[in-house]
């Protein structure tokens, strides 16, 4: 029987003829917080993009199941509407597209998929303002273009804002902490905890321990050359701080 949350079973991913993810398994239960750590080029971003349905990444083996339904036959839109969200490491610029109407279209697509009434403009603006306050963002920010001309930190805040709007079932954050200052990291950690409390399963991909000082993951996974090589509690993350990925994988 399938469980709720995200189940990644023995997943293999290829891109440009190379196998990057090699039989990876990972389960993220609703409300749990996981961390995936590993050196550059070990397959973290490939895993993320393959899960969300990027056309350049081919899943050649294994399965991905979200709340009992396989995602493999679904396209990117369908996977997103099923409740899987990736906060991108390098969010893409959409010149000329204003943040506010973009977000309204996004959140309403999700609401319609969940058989909820779409937000009217005024309902949406109220809701958006509240969430922007939670993230300590100025309301004028919503008048700018999506990621276009935004600083690294602003892009990451926008990804977080979308996560709060969408309220995904499973949220994967690919290096959400890069580009954020310490105050912003505290805010992001606090919001992630709230999301988890509300039932979102969370996978935090990071190189650094900074974010984990404010958010204790339930489970830490170490990935090396496309495979999970170690798993443990938060103490594993602390151990990684002191030693190297290479060393830890041979323990």
């Amino acid at each position, binding site marked *: 029987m399938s469980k709720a949350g995200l189940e990644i079973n023995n997943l293999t991913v290829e891109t440009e003829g190379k196998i990057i993810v090699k039989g990876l398994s990972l389960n993220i239960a609703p409300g749990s917080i996981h961390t995936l750590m590993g050196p550059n080029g070990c397959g973290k971003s490939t895993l993320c993009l393959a899960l969300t349905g990027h*056309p350049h990444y081919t899943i050649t083996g294994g399965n991905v199941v979200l709340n009992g339904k396989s995602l493999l036959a679904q396209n990117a839109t369908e996977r997103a509407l099923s409740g899987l969200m990736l906060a991108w490491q390098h969010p893409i610029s*959409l010149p000329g597209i204003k943040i506010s109407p973009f977000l309204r279209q996004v959140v309403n697509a999700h609401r319609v998929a969940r058989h909820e009434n779409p937000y009217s403009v005024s309902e949406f603006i109220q809701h958006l303002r509240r969430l922007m306050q939670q993230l300590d963002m100025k309301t004028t920010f919503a008048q700018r273009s999506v990621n276009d001309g935004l600083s690294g930190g602003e892009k990451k805040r926008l990804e977080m804002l979308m996560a709060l709007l969408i309220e995904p079932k499973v949220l994967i954050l690919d290096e959400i902490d890069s580009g954020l200052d310490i105050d912003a990291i505290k805010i992001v950690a606090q919001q992630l905890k709230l999301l988890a409390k509300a039932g979102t399963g969370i996978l935090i991909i990071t190189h650094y321990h900074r974010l984990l000082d404010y958010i204790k993951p339930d489970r830490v996974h170490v990935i090396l050359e496309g495979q999970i090589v170690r798993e443990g509690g938060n103490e594993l993350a602390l151990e990684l701080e002191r030693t190297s990925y290479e060393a830890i994988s041979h323990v």
Partner: protein
Amino acid sequence: MYKTTKGLTKSTVREISGYKSESKWMLEKRLAAYTIFKQKKMPRWGGDLSPINFDQITYYLKATSTKGRTWKEVPTKIRDTFDKLGIPESEKRWLAGVGAQYESESVYHELKQEWRDLGIIFEDTDTALKKYPDIFLKYFGTVVPATDNKFAALNTAVWSGGTFIYVPKGVQMTIPLQNYFRINAKGMGQFERTLIIADEGSSVSYIEGCTAPVYSTDSLHAAVVEIIALKNARVRYTTIQNWSNNIYNLVTKRAVAHAGATVEWIDGNLGSKLTMKYPSVYLIGKNSSADILSLAIAAKGQHQDAGAKVVHLASDTSSVITSKSISGNGGRTSYRGLVEVSSRAQRVHSRVKCDALLLDEHSRSDTYPTIRVKNQTASVEHEAAVSKISEEQLFYAESRGLDAETANTMIVNGFIEPIVKELPMEYAVELNRLISMQMEGSVG
């Protein structure tokens, strides 16, 4: 209803002028222009003009004998058309004055009292010829002479309707005027003539909208627009052309800017079978400037040959040309532009930026820029780029839960946003709607 028989001869020209009870001056202008029209060869550049058969066109068609100053006076059938286009509603909400032309003649023209009190003249061009002959004769044909090109000659010979605006010295029109052009008959030629004079230190914003229903027979729209911006005047001319896909839209639009004057063209071309239109500004006075935004969208069976021309004839003049084009479903867009700096014009600045977006492999985009600089002190920049909707942008939007079609439309709208933001809100909304209609089914 009154109409001339198909085809064009000297007697057609006499008939139109006679029917309008025009002065001898005008008739002679028309006849001279007719001779020029017959002599001039069809342009061999731009789009394919060979299907145009001048003998199969009705050159003058008056659908109704009444012209209203209230919409009630406009015959129901015609009023319904403009109602559906939302013209009377817009007039109430956000325009200073509105004109409506149906086939060859104006059927409605009204300027709100508060603006009339300031001495502004806003009339259809036929009425202006009769009521204000002094201003009319002084400026008519001075910016676009009949000798300019074959279609300018044709227009001068058979013109009917159009807009005439005069804004007195120092008067600032803070809200826009609009005229809406509609071709409803088959095989029809619409040849309106527009003349705008902004006197010293005045400002005016004028909007032109165009539509036609779809018939199997092609129609011709060959308008001439002349703008005179006198010292320190400011004129903005906005066009949203959404002709049906069987209209040849061959329009000559030109402005002269005197010292310190600014002319802005915002030229949006969505419809028509073939458009050849290059709004121009002649900067004849010191410190004058031109700002031209050109938007062209070509879908199946359409060729938008659009662009801009700026001729710098005086010192310290500046110009900016921004062109955005989108070709999809096998459509074709061309940017054709000219920037010329005369030898006596010192310290000229000009910047041209052309961005083309190709939606698929069957569509086409070309750029034909001409730059002639005869003065060493000029700074002239030209930048051109052709792009496709990036897969990454599309995927990013899709991975947030938007379907491919919505994502595509959104990215296209983002591409033209720098131009759309200059449009009145009503037009911006309409444009976005039209684009999503054109995009429908374009995503495989």
